[in-house]
Every structure is written in C-alpha cells, then in structure tokens.
C-alpha cells in the first residue's frame, strides 16, 4: 500500500492550469521533498491532495483511501505566513488545536489533551514559551509551534508547506531532527522545500514538480543535474552545488 497515490491530478484557477495530469506513487516510511521552481504549483499540489480545492480533477489516495478529514490520518502544516500571528492567543493554545480533531464537536480539551500538547511543545524545545502570545514569538519559534501542533495531532502522514522558510538555523535543525525521528517511527512525511543544497542531506525521497510531476523516487536517483535542469529549465543557478 502506498503512502500517497495520485492519478491524473489537475487543478485550474480562473481557467489557468496550475497542475496538469500529475501522477505519482510514494511508498510508506519516507521523508520526501517536493521541489520545483516558484509558481510550479507545489502548494496547490498539497491543497489538492488535502481536498481543499473544489476545482480539482483526478484521483488521490492516502494509505489506500480517499482523503477523509475526520480520520485524522493526515497532519498538515501550512505556510507560516498563511495565518495571522496577531491573533490573541498563546503558543500552548495553538498546539492544543492539534487535538481538536480528537475531541469532537462541542467538547473541551481534557487533561490528557493538555498533557499531549505540552509534550509536543517540549519536543520542539518550546516548553518555556507555552504562555507566550504568538505575536511575540520569532519566525522560527512560530514555525516550531506549528510543528508541535501537527505532532499533537499524532497523524500517520504529514504534509508540510515550506517549514524552513525564514527560520533560524537552530530551528531548521530542530525541525529536520523531528521529521527524521518521525520517519524512524514509520511515518511518511512530505515537505515542500526550496533549498536545493540541503535536499540530499535531509530527504531520502524526492518529487520533482513543475505543473506536473516530472520525476519521483529515491533522492540519489532523482536528484540529478539532468532531472533538475528539466524541472527548473533556465531558472537553475545552483547547479554547481548539486
């Protein structure tokens, strides 16, 4: 059974095609990078997988089933700048949101929910900031809080949209260590990633995307100069690092 199986996935906004006939299958237990140039449709690809886009066509299966929000199999970490960090609440409260799916409607967080949230905060090194207003956290700390929320959800498959964008080096290390630990536990992780220099070090699986899936497989097979040239075209200036 595949962690993710996508068949002929297409998405169009205002008649402009963002994603066309994307096909990919990824086995379980990988830490996979989704890479491609700006505007290649990476965030759209994630949102379409999570059934957030009404105008998509094609078939998506996660662990052999169509995406079902209530099953809580999938943990999603949006781009940090997708939310309003001036929202009046504290870090622990954001992490507790990861438990909402488990609580059900109309219920309040139990002691155990709070304990799980605190553990999740501790695992990203943020236990001392539980009561801190989220607006007063640095970008890296905000990203850690987001990751802690996903951990508190205790999903089987994680999708992260650019978790390393605009974070400090210490946060980047914390996040990648946690993602690697999740992989060791047998979970599957998909990360939209920008920094080509760290792909080989961080990810054992790579998906190349530009309007459609151009290649996917073990990083050492896919992350080659030829494939990258195909994905990025003339936009690739970092070949010397690859």
């Amino acid at each position, binding site marked *: 059974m595949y962690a993710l199986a996508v068949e002929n996935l297409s998405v169009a906004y*205002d008649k402009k095609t963002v994603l066309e006939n994307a096909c990919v299958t990824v086995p379980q237990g990988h830490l996979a990078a989704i890479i491609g140039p700006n505007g290649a449709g990476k965030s759209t690809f994630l*949102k379409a997988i*999570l059934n*957030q886009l009404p105008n998509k066509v094609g078939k998506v299966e996660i662990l052999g089933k169509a995406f*079902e*929000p*209530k099953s*809580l199999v*999938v943990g*999603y970490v*949006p781009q940090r700048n*997708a*939310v*309003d960090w001036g*929202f*009046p*609440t*504290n870090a622990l*409260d*954001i992490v507790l*949101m990861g438990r*909402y*799916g488990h*609580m059900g*409607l*109309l219920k*309040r*967080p139990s002691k155990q929910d709070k304990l799980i949230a605190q553990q999740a905060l501790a695992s990203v090194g943020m236990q001392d900031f539980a009561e801190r*207003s989220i607006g007063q956290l640095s970008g890296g700390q905000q990203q850690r809080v987001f990751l802690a*929320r996903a951990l508190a*959800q205790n999903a089987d498959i994680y999708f992260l949209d650019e978790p390393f964008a605009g974070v400090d080096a210490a946060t980047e290390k914390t996040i990648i260590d946690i993602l690697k630990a999740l992989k060791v536990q047998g979970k599957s992780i998909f990360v939209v990633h920008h920094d080509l220099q760290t792909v080989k070090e961080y990810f054992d699986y790579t998906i190349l995307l530009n309007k459609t899936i151009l290649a996917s497989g073990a990083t050492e097979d896919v992350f080659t100069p030829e494939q990258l040239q195909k994905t990025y075209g003339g936009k690739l200036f970092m070949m010397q690092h690859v």
Partner: protein
Amino acid sequence: MIEFWVIVTGLLVGITCGIAGVFLILRKMAMIADAISHTVLFGIVMAYILTQTLNGFWMLVGAALAGILTAYLVQLLHSSGIQEDAAIGVVFTSLFAAGVLLITLFAGNVHLDVEHVLMGEIAFVPWNQWSLLGITMPKAVWMLLFVLIINVTFLVLFFKEMKLATFDPVYAASIGLPIVFLHYAFMTSISFTTVAAFDSVGAILVVAMLIGPAATSYLISKTIKQMFIYSMLFGALAAVIGYYLAKLWDTSIAGMMAAAVGMLFMIVLIGQKLIERKRKAHMHKLEIT
C-alpha cells in the same frame, strides 16, 4: 422608569454587539457587517410584505435570510474573480436599494420608514412594551435579550471551532471542522444582532457598536476570552457615556453612543502607544546599563 429602560437598552446593545464583534474583527469581516446592517432592511421589508405584520419573530427570520443571502452573494462574486471589497459594495447597495424601493412601494403607511431604520430612536423604546410570563418590558429589550442568548449559546457551543476556523481555516478544514456551516451560522448571528439593535441605534450606528468595542479590545487583549470581556465592557461603557452626554447636550442618543465608541477607541489606542513607547525606552535603558 423611562430613563432606566433607555439605559438598559443601551447596555444590552453594547454588550450584544460587543460580543458579536469579536470574531468579526478577528475574521477581518468588518465590511461584511456593514453590508449586512444595510441588507437586513431588505429582509425585514420582505418579511413585512409576506406576513403583513411587524412581528419581531418574522423580522428576525427575514433578516437572517437577508444576511445569509448577502454573505452568499459576496462569496459568489468573489469566487468568480471580483475583488472582495467590490463584491461587498455591489451586493449591499443593490439589496439595500431594493429594500428602500419595496418600502416606498408596499409599506408606505406603516411604521417602517427608512429614516427610522437607518437612525433608530432609542428614546421611543420604553413606549413599545410587550409582556411574557407576567414580565412587562420594552419590546426592544426582549429582542436584545433573546438575541444575546442565541449569540452566547452559539459561542459557547462552537468556541474552539470558531477559534480554529478563524485562525487557520485551511488546517481547520483538513481535520474536518465544518467551516462553511460556521461561516453562515456566524453571519446569521450578525444579522440577528443587527435587527435587535435596529430600534435603538439603527442600521448605520449598529456598525459602530459591532466594530468599535471589539477593535478597541483587540488592542489590549492577549487571549480571545479577554477580548470578549473587554469588548462587552467597552460596548456597555460607550452606551452609558453616550446616553448621559446626549442628555447633557440635548442631542441624538444613538449618535452620541457611536461618538463615545470612537472616543474610547482613541483613548485606548493613544494610551497603548504611550505605554509601548515607555516600555521600549525602559528596555533601551536596560540595554545601555
């Protein structure tokens, strides 16, 4: 006794709008509230034309439907590629104009004139009494209490869902929260609030009550619960200050209440900036020493 009921009505408007306004501010929907406060007129007139009475219940139903229609049409235009503010502008002026036309055509001789709907008249509230379970109170007070209970119930039931759907709607949808239902339920509660506040402050000034106290409390709140408490307090305070200033200067009560809302906002804003500057200066001093 008359003065008492006017103040009670003002307090209830302040509290009810203060509560409803919190998520309006957090969801960045102030302009939608402005639109709804006008389009409910259309709903109320339709309710009158269909039932031929000025019954409060049917007014609420008509207003709720008009509010939902407004939110739906704005969404529809927006998703078809029109900017959201333009969509709001088009929808609310059209529905409001339809309401005005319907009043002049079919409801010319009833107590439903445009000026009353726009400006309200809180001083007349005590004369329109209504009895239930042996309690006699002004109709406006009954209506405000009823809507306050509905709003509070909605918030108590769906507090955590509203919080997450507001903060991070994409994640909320990804774990299966009913974000569309919450959106329209919330729009309904805004429509109810607008109708309940109609008699006292009217459609234009209800916007001040919906937005002002919540915007003021947003400046100084660290949690949403705090924001609710401050917002209610500011709303109630503005109502009382407005009433007494209006009495003192013999001017429009509703106008003075809205002015008090603006005044409170300015005071808190300036106070907050001063404290912030002082704190920064203090931190700077600490860094030097």
